[in-house]
């Protein structure tokens, strides 16, 4: 099934539609650019270009093979691959819409056969996945407080049936401190973890090679980036000038134009608050290793939203198409978010630890100074800056980034005194 098709210039070519029929099978129909029914779809070549010389998909024959294999498998082939055990459909709620990747190498491959069959045994063909995705989206939007009225009604309708999945936010292991910051518990890893980027990561730097790390203790981490309102409790005069007309100073926007020294001063102030002292809480900036571990959400994901590239809708606040059009700079093609500058914190999907904006919106300071990772070859410094404590490591990515960074790469190295509107 392919749905609406456009050529590389964005010109509408055709629409392919599935409709459930009375006998529980699906019908497939294809409409041309004028909206008229046609029997065979347009084909694309490996470059995604329209390729009239290649065979298209026939509505009557080709779609059903994959989509209805579950109820139509009577081949009884004794040499067919062994069936895999059926996993529980709702065993685990995905924290984000997962990547669904079916490459051509799978079509005649045992693993794909098994995947399709195990999926189909429990669901309405391969479309069964939409059930868990809807629950995932409703749970995510509930936590973001961004349910539309209709989504709210769906959430309330489904909650009695799936109470363990539509879990309220209150059940997250978290605490709220005396200035209203919410912090979530990041558990220690069960085993040794790997920190640093792999050489195959396009943003990998030679001195950031992956290496093992033993993180023995868990910690709490702020659920959201520090907002201007929170920062103004520490520094009432904090004010961020607009950037090319964009307002960056809203109470619920992240505090930017903050140097490493400013961030550390905020931490020091927090540690001196009587209520925090009485509660026995001590604050510090995370190391870059802690930041990376937390961003990976406990499952080693490549990006805070998962492994998918490009990022799915709702992944974060990046330089999207509107940003590119407005500022005539590089942007993430095909991606849209509702914000040109920084967004209010917590408007995008969190990672599995319920940390928001770990990708996009604004860079984050870490306490780590600029140094090569263990085992890095000599002379492999990524930039022109010398190693040393005068430089501090930034992590995450910002509203002006067209290429959001993976969890494992540094966003930049900045003088501890420098302030920019991205961090």
């Amino acid at each position, binding site marked *: 099934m392919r749905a609406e098709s456009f050529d590389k210039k964005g010109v509408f070519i055709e629409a392919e539609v599935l409709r459930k029929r*009375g*006998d529980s*099978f699906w019908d497939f*129909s294809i409409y041309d650019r004028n909206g008229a*029914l046609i029997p065979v779809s347009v084909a694309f070549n490996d470059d995604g270009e329209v390729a009239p010389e290649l065979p298209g998909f026939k509505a009557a024959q080709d779609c059903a*093979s994959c989509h209805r294999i579950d109820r*139509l498998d009577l081949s009884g082939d004794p040499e*067919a691959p062994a069936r895999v055990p059926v996993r529980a459909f709702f065993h685990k709620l995905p924290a984000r819409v997962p990547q669904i990747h079916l490459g051509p190498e799978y079509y005649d491959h045992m693993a794909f056969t098994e995947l399709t069959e195990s999926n189909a045994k429990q669901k*309405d063909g391969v479309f069964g996945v939409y059930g868990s995705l809807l629950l995932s989206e409703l749970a995510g939007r509930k936590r973001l407080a961004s349910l539309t009225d209709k989504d709210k009604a769906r959430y309330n309708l489904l909650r009695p049936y799936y109470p363990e999945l539509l879990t309220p936010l209150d059940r997250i292991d978290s605490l709220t401190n005396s200035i209203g910051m919410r912090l979530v518990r990041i558990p220690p890893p069960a085993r040794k973890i790997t920190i640093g980027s792999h050489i195959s990561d396009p943003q990998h730097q030679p001195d950031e090679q992956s290496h093992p790390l033993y993180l023995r203790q868990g910690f709490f981490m702020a659920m959201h980036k520090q907002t201007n309102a929170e920062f103004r409790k520490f520094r009432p005069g904090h004010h961020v000038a607009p950037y090319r007309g964009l307002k960056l100073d809203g109470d619920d926007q992240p505090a930017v134009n903050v140097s490493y020294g400013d961030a550390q001063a905020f931490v020091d102030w927090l540690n001196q608050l009587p209520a925090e002292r009485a509660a026995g809480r001590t604050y510090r900036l995370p190391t870059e290793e802690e930041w990376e571990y937390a961003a990976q959400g406990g499952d080693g994901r490549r990006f805070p939203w998962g492994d998918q590239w490009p990022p799915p809708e709702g992944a974060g606040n990046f330089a999207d198409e509107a940003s590119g059009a407005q500022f005539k700079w590089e942007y993430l093609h095909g991606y849209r978010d509702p914000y040109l500058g920084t967004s209010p914190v917590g408007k995008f999907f969190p990672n599995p630890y319920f940390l928001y904006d770990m990708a996009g919106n604004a860079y984050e300071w870490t306490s780590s100074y600029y140094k090569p990772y263990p085992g890095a070859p000599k002379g492999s410094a990524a930039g022109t800056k010398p190693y040393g404590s005068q430089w501090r490591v930034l992590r995450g990515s910002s509203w002006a980034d067209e290429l959001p960074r993976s969890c494992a790469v540094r966003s930049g190295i900045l003088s501890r005194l420098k302030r920019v509107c991205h961090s």
Partner: protein
Amino acid sequence: MSLMGHFRFAATLLFGGMLAAVPTNWLHIALAGRTVHNSHYLAASFLYQLQTLLGTDASSPQVMQGRIIRRQGKELYIDLDQVPPERAAVLRQIAAQQQPAGEISLDEMGAYMAKRYYQLTRPYPTLQALLRDHPYRDNPNWLTVPVDSETFHRLRVLRINKDRIADALISYFDNNDRLIYPKGTVIAGRIL
């Protein structure tokens, strides 16, 4: 060695006897190019078209029920006694397009259905008519699912009405833990 040879001979005779027992009103389904891994897909395509030919309503003869499909070893057959006579005649007619006439191939079925599929399934006659009933474009009431598939070499965003998914989720437990979308559910989307 001699004894083993006799056993093998006996087994061959028995197997040959089973094949000879296929009733004359069983139409053999030929799936050219079948392999261990693709036989599922080829069979699914054939059976889907057969179901469409027999009818698309809940009251239509169900291909997977009523002993319409028979199996011997790896081979599938249509028991023509189990389908309405006029449809059995159509199936014989399709099978007669190519030799052997007592065998109906996926190609024969595909060629026949290509001309009649829309007539049998009665889709919306135009995309505009479909969109009037199912306004899936830029609609927050439709779930959007990005799918990265090498099949089409482009990222797709699929859309399905959230209320239809909710219906399926509610009936999930009554349907023996299966997610069954209600009749009329539409899935659409676009390639980026």
